[in-house]
């Protein structure tokens, strides 16, 4: 874990030096680590079991037109190697971590990975990621400005995604992450934000969230919000 975090810091530093940290958002389990730092609280200790570092590119068609970076080479300097997926997606692998780029899937979907020209990478389109790119939080960390999704949006995203998972362990992990984060945010006095975010969701999504919470006998988590 400590080794992985040290490597993550080196990756973030490289991206910061390359000037592309402004164009990407750190999502996934590693983002929740930065919530604890942002709220300066020791109460929130996210369970980071993942070995994936996921970066979201909110606007892949218009990313860094002035930049012409080769992120593959940047990661190569940190001993990451390319792995070509069958779908054409390129992931960057190290001994213990995998870097992957994601983009929000819109409309019918592109059916496969898309190329991000400014960064010379491919990214995987996924549903519901636009939830994470709408509201962002900037965490100052060791001279870097790290963008992470708004924690309320992230918690609801995890809830919705947990309902779409087939694997039991992943489903449980997403659900637990969401519930822990909502509980922590309530302790931080963000109950109103949780209620207003829930009410701002489209009605079908609200239903989905309610049914997931109801299924786990946890609907009261929204009641006091």
């Amino acid at each position: 874990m400590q080794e992985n975090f040290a490597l993550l810091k080196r990756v973030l530093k490289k991206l910061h030096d390359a000037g592309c940290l402004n164009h990407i958002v750190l999502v996934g389990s590693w983002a929740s680590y930065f919530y604890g730092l942002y709220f300066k609280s020791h109460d929130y200790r996210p369970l980071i079991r993942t070995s994936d570092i996921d970066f979201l590119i909110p606007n892949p068609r218009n990313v860094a037109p002035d930049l012409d970076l080769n992120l593959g080479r940047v990661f190569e300097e940190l001993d990451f190697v390319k792995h070509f997926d069958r779908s054409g997606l390129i992931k960057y692998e190290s001994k213990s971590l995998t870097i992957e780029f994601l983009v929000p899937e819109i409309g019918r979907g592109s059916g496969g990975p898309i190329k991000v020209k400014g960064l010379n990478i491919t990214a995987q389109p996924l549903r519901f990621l636009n939830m994470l790119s709408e509201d962002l939080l900037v965490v100052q960390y060791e001279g870097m400005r790290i963008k992470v999704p708004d924690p309320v949006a992230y918690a609801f995203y995890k809830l919705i995604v947990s309902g779409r998972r087939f694997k039991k362990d992943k489903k449980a992990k997403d659900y637990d992450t969401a519930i822990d984060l909502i509980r922590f945010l309530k302790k931080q006095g963000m109950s109103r934000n949780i209620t207003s975010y829930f009410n701002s969701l489209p009605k079908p999504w609200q239903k989905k969230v309610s049914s997931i919470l109801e299924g786990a006998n946890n609907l009261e988590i929204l009641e006091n919000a």
Partner: protein
Amino acid sequence: MEMLKGVLQEELANSRRRVSAFMAALKELPKGSLHEKEIKGKKYFYRAYWDPKSKKNIFELLGDKPSEKLIASYEKAKAKRASYKNQIRVLKLQVHFLERVLRAREFRIAEACSKKAA
């Protein structure tokens, strides 16, 4: 138990994917190393590499002195090769360990129990 098995299976798949990624990266590195030899006061440059078919070290004579850029690329490749080989070794140990763990009797018993319960 099922969740634990799922986590271990995911880790095994990750480790296998990483082994294949490092193997592919290893193949892409320039083969062999550059050597300089002085014979009767004259300098000769060779590229030495292992030929798996003939099972011999092959010394290929280079016409001119290799450029600084080429020498640097071979030096870099040498360091990378050592690092990749080390990572492959560690990952293979991890794969081996995870495969053994997933074959454990406890998992089989738990699976049988859950089948019975269903």
